[in-house]
């Protein structure tokens, strides 16, 4: 699989130096918020047109609180940092200057992170900083939960 994507490196200027691998073909069926929740079949979004999937018991709004509630409903809680912790898995939420969520990444067993980039590809990136910048903003919240005994990869 190709690990060099000039368009991706143009949009995320830090990613080349931080290190990344492209890990899937293009797939518009799911977005980063779904992928962080280990779902690659649905597009998670609280849009007012009710096009995206969003749990009915969580506020359908584009806020960091609503997204945190979404992941809390899956067993995650806010934590301090993205360091690899034994028996825990983590999700990082990127926010823009208005605190609107722009992206989410999920930590892998290796300590690297996996991200779905829009309607495009999945990548693995060694650091969270690799995707920070004008497109996704900066990491604003990190959550963690205990690993399940059986886990889908």
């Amino acid at each position, binding site marked *: 699989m190709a690990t060099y994507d000039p368009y991706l490196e143009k949009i995320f200027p830090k990613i080349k130096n931080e290190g990344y691998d492209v890990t899937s073909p293009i797939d*518009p069926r799911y977005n980063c918020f779904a992928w962080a929740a280990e779902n690659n079949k649905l597009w998670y979004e609280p849009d007012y*047109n*009710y096009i*995206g*999937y969003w749990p009915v018991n969580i506020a359908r709004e584009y806020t960091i609180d609503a997204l945190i509630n979404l992941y809390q409903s899956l067993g995650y809680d806010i934590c301090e940092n993205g360091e690899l912790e034994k028996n825990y898995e983590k999700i990082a939420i990127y926010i823009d200057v208005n605190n609107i969520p722009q992206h989410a990444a999920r930590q892998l067993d290796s300590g690297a992170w996996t991200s779905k980039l829009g309607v495009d590809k999945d990548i693995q990136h060694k650091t969270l900083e690799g995707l920070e910048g004008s497109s996704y903003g900066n990491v604003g919240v990190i959550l963690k939960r205990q690993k399940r005994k059986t886990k889908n990869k």
Partner: protein
Amino acid sequence: MPEITFGSYIPIRNTRESKYKSSGIAASLAASAVRSQWQNVIQQDFATAVTMQTELHKFCNLAFTWKEDTKMMSSMRDIALHPAYQEIIGMGKSAISYILDDLAIELSLWFWALRAITGDNPVPVTHQGDFEKMRKDWLIWGEENGYI
């Protein structure tokens, strides 16, 4: 959509003209009337063809720009607010067939535009967020409403 070329109309007109040129005055008058009618038909079809070509080219350019510019965006709202996407919505009902043709070829986030243009929603609640199922819902809607 079948490709409509301007040249495909011209040979038909020339054939009709040459058929009547070899006859007498009466035939010439008849030929003139027929030619006039043919020209009306040709001009109308030609104008329609030109309009369709222009709209198709406009749609293709806008769709290409939109897809390229938004492919890394995580939010459908941001994707739908792209100026090219909004311009496609602004094309109104003339864009529906092009959108559905594109959707039949590849899965893209046309659902927002289809909702906005048609004012309709064939997607059941249980299909929300499942773009493969939503795609089928809209293609069936397109068939049922004469757009495909």
